[in-house]
């Protein structure tokens, strides 16, 4: 049996060892994240068959829960770790050629830390531990947003930092209140005891925790940092922030709501909140002429969709929501990576600067188009089955309210289609003004794009590939008693 701890330990360890490697050779530094995530991805894949049978609970330091800190590698955790490792690996490969300036060593170190933190969040079974990993994730992302070092980057990093800090404070207060109430920080133990407490005393820590985590999860109206941060970070980091960081934030919200608090009564509220987030995100994206801000707002929209799916809280809906998470990581990751090189070549983030890119960078443009089609939910790309499941779940509720809400959600899809297709038209059907020399992204940039495209196509055509994992992940979230039983024994 392989130990899931390695999923966190290897990137974390390598992150701290990275300066040492830097002393040996400056050139090998950038390959270290690649190695780390190849290992993580292989490990996560290796773990999947095992966790589908039985969640692996690792007791750190040998103390059984609820006394010691533990890791819970259930289907959800391993699914997320695999996703993080995959995106991390591809973006690390992309960064080989993309990150050419600035303090590269620090970039790679922070990158490893960010993803180690993300992996920690999804695997931990202890709420304070979750906070710690969350902070690792957040702090490294603050730093990475400012990586380019220009005025916009630093400004948005500061804004991100302030909002993140406010969120973290709320989170910490919430956790403190919980600890005061129940005297335990183990999530399973908390979940078990929560029913015994009076509702209002549990409510206060709950809203604090949700608000705190919601900042990172980009739930409206806590997401004001996101467009700035995502658009001024280097594109590789934007891909990770959009594809991984906010999804991990969302994971934390979902885990807290479903597993710890079992707050089924709140779901209706969150369904509305999700639809609101979706519509506002899509509408803001529609009004954008800056490609990265457009993609960032689109991420807000996608988060709204996922929140809505989760709030339906049936097994179909959770499967669909998790699938949408996967397809968003793939699609948005791909879009940011392709946009990165298109910005690099055209020297501007304005969409109008991409005129004629279809001729100048045919493969990159094709990849962008596929990513866009997938996010809109067109078959045969991965966005289609995921949206299919969510719509189906909403309609299976057979309530008029949900039918109306899904109508609004799909209205968001229409807006989404409008702005993505506009970009596709600019890429292919406008004449390049000025420079029209054909020069595609470098190989190290193209490889991750191609792999993303392959995943988008394969999962779109053959969703059965992941559906089993998603199903058991959904049932892990839905059945909190089983989670408690599997952790506490």
């Amino acid at each position: 049996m392989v130990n899931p701890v390695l999923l966190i330990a290897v990137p974390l360890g390598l992150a701290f060892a990275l300066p040492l490697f830097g002393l040996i050779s400056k050139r090998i530094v950038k390959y270290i994240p690649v190695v780390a995530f190849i290992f993580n991805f292989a490990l996560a894949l290796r773990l999947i068959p095992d966790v589908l049978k039985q969640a692996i609970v690792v007791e750190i330091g040998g103390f059984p829960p609820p006394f010691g800190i533990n890791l819970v590698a259930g289907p959800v955790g391993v699914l997320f770790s695999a996703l993080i490792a995959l995106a991390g690996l591809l973006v690390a490969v992309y960064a080989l050629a993309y990150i050419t300036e600035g303090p590269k060593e620090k970039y790679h170190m922070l990158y490893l830390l960010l993803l180690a933190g993300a992996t920690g969040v999804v695997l931990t079974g202890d709420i304070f531990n979750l906070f710690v990993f969350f902070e690792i994730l957040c702090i490294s992302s603050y730093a990475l947003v400012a990586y380019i070092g220009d005025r916009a980057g630093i400004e948005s990093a500061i804004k991100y930092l302030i909002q993140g800090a406010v969120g973290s404070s709320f989170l910490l207060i919430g956790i403190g209140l919980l600890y005061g109430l129940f005297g335990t920080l183990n999530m399973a133990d908390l979940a078990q005891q929560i029913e015994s407490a009076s509702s209002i005393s549990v409510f206060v820590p709950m809203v604090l925790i949700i608000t705190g985590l919601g900042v990172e999860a980009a739930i409206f109206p806590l997401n004001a940092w996101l467009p700035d941060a995502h658009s001024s970070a280097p594109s590789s980091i934007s891909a990770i922030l959009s594809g991984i960081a906010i999804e991990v934030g969302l994971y934390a919200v979902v885990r807290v709501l479903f597993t710890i608090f079992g707050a089924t009564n709140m779901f209706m509220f969150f369904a509305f909140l999700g639809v609101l987030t979706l519509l506002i995100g899509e509408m803001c994206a529609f009004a954008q002429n800056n490609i990265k801000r457009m993609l960032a707002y689109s991420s807000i929209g996608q988060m709204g969709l996922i929140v809505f799916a989760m709030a339906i809280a049936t097994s179909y809906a959770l499967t669909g929501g998790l699938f949408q998470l996967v397809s968003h990581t793939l699609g948005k990751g791909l879009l940011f990576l392709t946009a990165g090189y298109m910005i690099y070549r055209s020297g501007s983030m304005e969409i109008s600067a991409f005129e004629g890119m279809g001729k100048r960078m045919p493969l990159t443009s094709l990849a962008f188009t596929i990513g866009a089609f997938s996010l809109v939910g067109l078959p045969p790309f991965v966005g289609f089955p995921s949206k299919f499941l969510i719509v189906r779940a909403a309609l299976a509720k057979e309530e008029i309210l949900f039918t109306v809400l899904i109508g609004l959600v799909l209205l968001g899809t229409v807006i989404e289609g409008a702005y993505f297709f506009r970009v596709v038209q600019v890429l292919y059907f406008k004449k390049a003004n000025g420079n029209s020399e054909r020069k595609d992204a470098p190989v190290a940039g193209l490889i991750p794009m191609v792999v993303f495209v392959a995943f988008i196509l394969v999962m779109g055509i053959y969703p059965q590939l992941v559906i089993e994992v998603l199903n058991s992940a959904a049932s892990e979230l839905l059945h909190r008693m089983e989670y408690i039983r599997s952790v506490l024994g």
Partner: protein
Amino acid sequence: MSLELLLIVAFGGALLSYLFGKICPQIRDPFAVISSVALAVMMAFLYGKTMESPFYFGFLGLPLILRTNMLAWFFAMAISILGALSVIFSWDYVKDRERTDFYYLMLLLANASMLGIVFAGDFVSFFVFWEIMSWSTFLLISYNRGRALGAGMKYIIMSIVGSVSMLIGMLSLYAIYGTLHIATLSKLVPSASSGYLLFLFILFGIAFAIKNALMPLHTWLPDAYAESPTSFNGVLSGMLTRMGMYGFLLIIYVIVGAARALNLGPGIFKFNYILAWLGAITIVVSTFIALLQNDAKQLLGWSAIGQGGYMILGIAFGTSLGLAGGIFHTLNHAVYIVLLFMSVGAVQYRTGGQRDLDSLGGLIKRMPVSFIGALLGISGLIGIPLTNGFVSKWLIYKTLILEGHPFLAFAALIGTWGCILYCYKFVHHIFLGQLPEKYKMVARAPFSMQLPMIILSLVILLFGILPGIPLKVINTIGTSFGFQSLNVTTWGIASETGTLNTINIFAAVVAACVIVWLIFKAGPKAVPVAQEDTYAAGAAIPKDRYHYTVDFYNPLYRMISPYFKDFIGGFCIKLAGWTQNVCHGIRQMYTGYIGHYVMYIVLFLALLIFVQLKWSLW
């Protein structure tokens, strides 16, 4: 021959054409032609077969199924033949353009996906092919750049609205019945409650009405037709738009069934009445708007909207006669509108893309085959006896009159009489009258354009004189929907309330023409003269235009132009503007001041607490 094989040929042909274009461009065009003709031939062998088989199991536990029956075959045959002709027509038309590989890929892909739609045996594959059709069409509509971008955006946004609506409809079927298999659904759905059936009809109806450009959901069509490459118009106007008709037939007569679908709803607001009235409004409004157009392709686009209304009128009342009329009109319209677009395409090809009616003229002397194509095309469009359009329109009128809907029949008839005006304008402005000086040296259309035009012209006459050939197939479709069989003969339809006999008309017209011809021949031979000789009485006239085209129906224009405008199209443009403004407004929420942002966080917390105190959710 299995259906999988057909679809593999169709999609494979598309991809291989692209690859050949990249590897050795010389064989791309022949390959595209051969593969699409081969597809049409293979399709012909499928005649009369009924089969069904799943072809893929990997999609979320739903088997994807292909099936064929007479309805599917009928549409598939039309799609593949018109597709093949369009590919042949494209040979010269796109030769000198850029990105021709892309053009062929998308053209063949759109064709292949339409075949997928008609052969789909379950709604997932139906939807998947539907979407592939939508985005491939979007890319082709945008192909011409410039104004085409706006047309493409309109098309794809309306398409997404339609797909979204269909998605909700089909997934609610899935949620309730747990299957998306069409044959199974057609057994289960008819027993559903009336409210649910209406819900289904509205959702699917929106999707299909958008594709079929039924008013008020037609706004994408005129621009899309006008701006897409004319060689693609054949596919777009012929069958792609009519996938909406296929959809209507599928949802009304296959899934829900005539017994439940008709007379569904309260009082006079019955579903099929509303549908029929929308069809009638579509006919009248679009006919008069077409009359006001000065762009050949816009004119044909508006005309196509109106003809869609006839099809809807035909199928709305669920009589075997009307159904036959509606389905037959779908086919007939495809034949002549493709022919008309090809004729315009040939003219555009030779005159450097000119499609402004006021700038052309007199081309009958330079491009006779294109003129004959255009003449037979408009004859079919008007429905002149002995052309195909007459038979289907006759069936539709007859249904409406006998079912006691004279107002609907009036709308249909007046549509036809308005259609004469714009059809004449179309032919007169392009082909008749004076030949402009700059087009004096224009050559005939190349053979690759003449061949499809000749074939389609013959088809128009064939179906007009011997309408029994397609009507027998259509009759089989009707009986498969559970209607009683029509008394179809090779040259018409016999019934007690008025018989149609095309062979009599044909004989009479031929005899009369021969007699008149003989009388005419008996007189002195006419001397051919040029325009100057008679109009200017031999005096030299300036080499300017003596061709009366601009504001051709001026008094009529003045009367109708205040009332017949594309108000809905204008509204949609406004709506888009408002949406943009609202979006910009909402974006202002992200002010850029960190103080505001932190306030949002605190407010959210406050909101949560407020919600709890007020409603005690938890």
